[in-house]
């Protein structure tokens, strides 16, 4: 895996197109496997938002955004792999925000689309709603998928609760404290979750 570049006074330096090309050429075989697998994972998880989207679609779009500089790479702050993971994740997020957000905007009453009285009227209001927020519809779709996945653990109460805590956004130490489990038990549960996630999203 690529080394994490240290923070420093030049951490804000944004990569040029040539630096991006050099970083791509310098990627190790393992980093390419990681990136390809991550794109596949995201594509599978996001099938409900954009049926038919593939890992290679996400990879291609991510690489294009990297070259166009629509998402800046602060090359002294994060590694190229982390930067690419971030773009793939961001594109997947866009899918759920734009598709679910468009639905939300289309089904909202007109009064809900007006800015509040104390806000300046903004022509970007609907675009902001579509692009910059996780809409209730998007979250509802995700929760539905999550509940289906969680039901796979009905025979394993400990892992079911770890998953429940994770879904609530609790950190590892918080989960240990809440459930009274050791780090080893938490790690075992996380491994089980990962293994079943592979099968679940491959089959659903």
């Amino acid at each position: 895996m690529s080394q994490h570049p240290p923070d420093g006074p030049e951490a804000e330096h944004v990569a040029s197109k040539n630096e991006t090309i050099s970083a791509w050429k310098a990627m190790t075989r393992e980093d390419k496997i990681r990136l390809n697998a991550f794109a596949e994972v995201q594509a599978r998880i996001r099938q409900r938002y954009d049926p038919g989207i593939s890992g290679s679609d996400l990879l291609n779009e991510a690489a294009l955004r990297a070259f166009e500089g629509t998402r800046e790479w602060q090359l002294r702050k994060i590694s190229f792999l982390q930067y690419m993971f971030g773009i793939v994740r961001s594109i997947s997020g866009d899918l759920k925000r734009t598709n679910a957000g468009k639905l939300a905007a289309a089904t909202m009453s007109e009064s809900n689309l007006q800015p509040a009285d104390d806000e300046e009227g903004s022509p970007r209001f609907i675009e902001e709603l579509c692009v910059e927020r996780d809409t209730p519809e998007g979250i509802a779709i995700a929760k539905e998928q999550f509940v289906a996945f969680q039901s796979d653990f009905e025979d394993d109460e400990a892992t079911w609760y770890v998953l429940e805590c994770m879904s609530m956004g609790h950190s590892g130490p918080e989960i240990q404290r809440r459930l009274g489990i050791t780090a080893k038990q938490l790690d075992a549960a996380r491994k089980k979750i990962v293994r079943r996630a592979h099968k679940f999203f491959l089959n659903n």
Partner: protein
Amino acid sequence: MDDNQLKQTNPLDRLSDLLEEELLQATGAELEEIAREWAVDPAKSVEAVDCAFKEALQQHNKAKLREAMRTRDAEIAKLAAIQQELPKDRNALIELLTTRLAAMRQDNPSRVTIQHRNLGELTEDDLRGLLRDLCAVDHP
């Protein structure tokens, strides 16, 4: 985390974090095994990633080229328009150029280096060329 924040939490994001963490930590045979579990062929991953970057670079370069061609076409159209607006008569061209140079000299003397030349020695093409250049300088 309060109830309102919980309602807004996307549980798949947490799952995605976990899978990302797993990928970043795994190395060697373990990484290849994880990739296979996701039905990703490790041997083809290098090619898949390189192919995505190559295609994206081509798309990006083509878009840049199209943009450059649009800019060039706009420049040509602008110059053609200037050409049509220029007087046909040689004396009128000299008069126009003299006026333009005088205006520029007044505005910023260091910009005008042609002031001591005799405009009468220039051909009509030279006069038109100079006027076109001055227009381009004034309306970049």
